[in-house]
């Protein structure tokens, strides 16, 4: 199975189950139109927050004329302002995402669509990017649930690309003039350049980051894979590189240690960025895992 079909992706039952979830970020920079994301800037929202002295350029409709009558100075109302949040879904389409059964891309696209649906439900602007060794932006961002079908259709058309090169992709992304928002990276993070390269590149990105790591249990414990026995020639599906391994307890122990280090590095990266890291097990139910992720009904990044 290479990818999900549109019908499999655009599952109304799945999408309706997502309606209870909220996606919020801690701080947001004023730039866009009104939305449901709380801005630190005071503006022209619905809820009154304070007064401030008038400066040229303020909206005259906000001037409190009663105070002006009493004090002879101009003050304007300051309201809590809600703005829309640009959400950039960056989905890994490298070969490793399509290799196994079930392929990681299935869980990846479902998770991305879920997050996209939640954001669109909050009138945020959702854009879809895909990557392997290059960045590829899908057209037509969406900003409402009614447009979710567009997002699903874009996802259904995604196909297998080449090897993972996330560091270069992030570098390219950082040079794009995009509104600051939330960048959701959906990937297995098996980048041959290593976590260090990703670390360097991701710090150049001005967006808030949410890392969705697509995993399988056998990543951490290869003995769960019945094929991992005896003398093996392990072929890297992206690099066409092969490595001969004699599966022995010592090798398995070492592998587990190294994979643990990789995971720790990824968690440390997320912590240092102040971003979130969510591990999605590709062989388990996505909705259950999203429910755990949104335990308090909203995910705060």
């Amino acid at each position, binding site marked *: 199975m290479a990818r999900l079909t549109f019908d499999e992706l655009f599952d109304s039952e799945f999408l309706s189950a997502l309606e209870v979830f909220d996606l919020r970020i801690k701080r947001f920079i004023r730039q866009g139109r009104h939305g449901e994301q709380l801005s630190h800037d005071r503006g022209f929202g619905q809820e009154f927050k304070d007064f401030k002295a008038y400066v040229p350029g303020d909206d005259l409709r906000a001037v409190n004329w009663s105070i002006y009558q009493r004090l002879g100075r101009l003050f304007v109302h300051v309201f809590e302002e809600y703005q829309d949040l640009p959400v950039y879904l960056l989905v890994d389409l490298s070969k*490793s995402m399509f*290799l*196994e059964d079930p392929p*990681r891309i299935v869980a990846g696209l479902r998770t991305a669509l879920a997050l996209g649906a939640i954001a669109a439900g909050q009138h945020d602007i959702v854009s879809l990017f895909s990557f392997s060794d290059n960045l590829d932006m899908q057209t037509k961002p969406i900003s409402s649930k009614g447009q979710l079908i567009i997002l699903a259709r874009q996802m259904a058309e995604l196909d297998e690309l080449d090897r993972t090169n996330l560091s270069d992709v992030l570098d390219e992304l950082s040079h794009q003039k995009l509104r600051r928002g939330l960048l959701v990276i959906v990937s*297995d993070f*098996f980048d*041959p350049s*290593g976590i260090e390269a990703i670390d360097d590149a991701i710090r150049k990105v001005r967006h808030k980051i949410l890392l969705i790591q697509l995993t399988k249990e056998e990543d951490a414990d290869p*003995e769960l894979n019945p*094929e*991992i026995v*005896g*003398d*093996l*020639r*392990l*072929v*890297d*599906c*992206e*690099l066409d*590189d*092969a*490595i*001969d*391994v*004699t*599966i*022995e*307890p*010592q*090798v*398995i122990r*070492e*592998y587990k*240690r*190294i*994979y643990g280090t*990789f995971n720790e590095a990824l968690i440390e990266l997320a912590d240092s960025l102040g971003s979130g890291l969510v591990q999605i097990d590709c062989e388990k139910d996505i909705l259950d895992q999203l429910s755990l992720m949104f335990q308090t009904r909203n995910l705060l990044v």
Partner: protein
Amino acid sequence: MNLLNLSPLFFGAGLAGLAVGLYLLQQLRIRYTRVPVPTTLFWAEAVRDAPVRVFRQRFKHWLAWLLAVLICWLLWLGFADLRTDRSETANFYALVLDGSAQNAVGDDFEVSKQQLLNDVRSYPKQQREVYYAGEHNLKLLAYDEETRVLKQRLDDQTPVSARSSVEDQLRLLARDAVNAENQVHAIVYGRTAIPSEVIDDLPENMSVEQRLPDDEDNFSNRGIVALGVGEPLSGAWDKVDVLIRVLRTNADEVTAEDLTITVGDQTISSDELTGVGDSDFLLDDVLADGSELQVSISGEDDLEFDNEASLVLPIRTQIPIYLGNNVPESILPAINADTALIVVPESEAKVAVLGPGDSPSTLPTFHVVDESAQEQAFEIWYVGPQDENSERALDRTIERLGIEHIDATAIAQEIERQITVRLRFGDQRIVSVWLPVVEDEFNFRESISFPLFISKSMRYLADEAPWYAYLAAGRQAIEQSAGTSLADTDALSELAVGTYFVRNATGEFELTDELPGVISLLDKTSTIRSSSENIGSETVATTSPYPLWELITWLMLLALALVVSEWYIYQRRLMP
């Protein structure tokens, strides 16, 4: 302790070879299973300190190698067939099942068969063979053949009306045992009597044992043990006397009324039988016209095969001869005295007898000629191609003509010429004799050999058909009348010489158009069942020298246990 299949040297070499071979195989295991994975990042780092096995790299999987070597060694040891008792490996067992009439009483054959099947599993397949002694000797199970095929082969065998060929089989085994290095044990399954002379002739490294079907011997039987024809005491040329001999064991005496005799379609009354002694009956002057004579005993007994016997009566007709005008008077008395001869006109004759001056005949001719007519005293012409066989037949003809009985020296002195015989090949049988040899003035004419010579010459010239005095299963066909007949017995002699004519089973046969016959059992040992002498016998199988739980079983179990252990260790990933 001994190895049955392998020499110690080869066994040791095999052990070493297996160990070395497996060691090399462990090192040469470089055929990797190709498994695509999402990334090799972690594996590359993981194997940095535990590199994969490569050719000729340091050997480190001692446990795997040791287990494999042990398993292979155990299998190799099993194949070598280790025996702890050296004496057993030096033995060879020939199991002989009697399928003759002697083992056809009641369920004796089935019991013997089952005993054999029980026993044969006890012997290693490299040390035993199974023979079937029925009509012919068959090897039912050869050396190294699987025992399980024996039952099916035995199912195809049933006892036949035949004399036992166990004796023949034992003689064959004895012949082979003479050159054998090991001890040969023949075990006979059945009740057939083994003559003591067979046992006495066994080589030192061979022994015979017999397994009887049961202990009890309530055998009750009456049977025909002889049926033969001979020259009639009456002297009638065209008739024969018939002798019937009947024996019994644990049964009532056989009277003439118990015997039913038929000749062709005609039943002979028991009144015509003359009892001779306790067991013989004589039927006089039975017309020798080629009919089949059948004799049967009424009543039931334990063995059916000997209750009937048959023979084909000979065909004895007078030989018509033509006498020429100049036949010497000296030979006429001999011709007239022979009741087998009858003088007829030349057109009806089969043989012509001519004297000096008579016109030659196209018939086979007894010709008396002047001395000047031929160089030798006797010239005998033989019909047929001149080859080795016909020359031998011609020699026999001379012998049978009785010429060797002639006092040739005396005749030669009297006629002052050398008496010789010349054998010639031609289109017609001819016996040509000098006139002086048959004239009254010489003593040959007066000797008892003279009428014999004349009679035999007439039969030779008439090419009289031969006949058998009796035909019995398992016994050589003997020419008629115990050799006293004057018939031409060339064909019979040929048959009698070769053992191939010995037919073990009863029944009709037709060797040639002229020689039809019926073979009967006529076997005294089958009818009265004599027991073997000087042979150890018992009714139960001996204890197997190779019990079920022999060493090979333990070896295989141990090998299985090691395989299970290896699997367990492998599953625990303690071994690659």
